[in-house]
């Protein structure tokens, strides 16, 4: 239902501080993202449809069969320092999950600790923002989201073919055409992006980091 026309990206924001949750929500909404906020890593995993011990099976019992999540999440932005599961732990769990590992993850922290930053980036975080986060920081999210979007299109097309039994032939045809159009447009871009991605990212990326004196 409405899988082909998703104009808004959905961001899941995780922070134990209510003030920071409110702030990041406002920042994201101002940037025209759809937002869900949760106050812990475990709630984030729950929302993403991942159970604590479930790392390989994408189809968990309580969600629809073809989409491993009830609601699609295009990016996760999380605080680093949280009681219980830290942002780093959450990042790890997401990257270890076959169903979630493609979701870009961004870490936020009030503390500028270089070893922390590189550890997160090495674990697969796309960006590391120092708090307080600004609107200008959020502009850096777009490229990561666009990258996921075109990957998603491809996966959805495959799922679409599997799903053919559930839809009327006409609806299926329409959605397929839309997918193909978008696929053509993003095909070249996707190739370029995939070539740009190396399996081990050893170069440190210090985007979006300002030293706080």
């Amino acid at each position: 239902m409405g899988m082909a026309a998703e104009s808004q990206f959905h961001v899941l924001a995780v922070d134990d501080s209510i003030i920071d949750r409110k702030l990041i929500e406002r920042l994201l909404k101002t940037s025209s993202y759809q937002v869900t906020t949760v106050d812990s890593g475990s709630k984030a995993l729950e929302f993403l449809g991942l159970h604590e011990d479930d790392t390989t099976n994408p189809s968990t019992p309580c969600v629809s069969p073809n989409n491993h999540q009830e609601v699609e999440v295009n990016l996760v932005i999380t605080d680093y320092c949280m009681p219980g599961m830290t942002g780093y732990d959450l990042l790890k769990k997401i990257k270890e999950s076959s169903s979630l590992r493609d979701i870009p993850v961004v870490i936020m922290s009030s503390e500028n600790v270089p070893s922390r930053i590189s550890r997160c980036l090495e674990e697969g975080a796309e960006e590391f923002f120092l708090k307080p986060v600004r609107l200008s920081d959020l502009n850096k999210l777009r490229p990561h989201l666009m990258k996921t979007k075109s990957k998603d299109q491809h996966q959805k097309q495959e799922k679409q073919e599997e799903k053919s039994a559930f839809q009327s032939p006409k609806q299926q045809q329409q959605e397929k055409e839309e997918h193909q159009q978008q696929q053509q447009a993003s095909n070249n871009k996707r190739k370029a992006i995939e070539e740009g991605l190396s399996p081990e990212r050893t170069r440190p990326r210090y985007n979006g980091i300002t030293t706080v004196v």
Partner: protein
Amino acid sequence: MDIVSQLQRQFIDYSASLHHEQGFVDDQFTQLQKLQDENSPDFVVEVASLFFEDCEKLINNMARALEQQQGVDFKQVDASVHQLKGSSSSIGAVRVKNVCISFRSFCEAQNREGWSNSFLQQVDQLNNIHVILW
């Protein structure tokens, strides 16, 4: 109703400009004001309210931890100060934030006396902000 909220907003803007000069709030507060618009007309007031509630809770935690007869749990105090530092930084309450930073060195030094004195000073400062913003 509309005029009242307009006046309210003007008051906040005015007092915020005073703060900027007096140093109670920094640029982050201005950033918050920029995020307020027709879609979220009460954003600054809402965040400020949350901040004061948070402050109260955290300061109570710290006070309780400090009052411990059997020995102050500086880890607990430090955790609360860390949270308060984060909140004040997010809202732009720079004086509070700076006091939190020096608080933490007291905690590290386990300096109970130093802590208590500036703690009282700090509560005063917070009261000032509270009065001005409201």
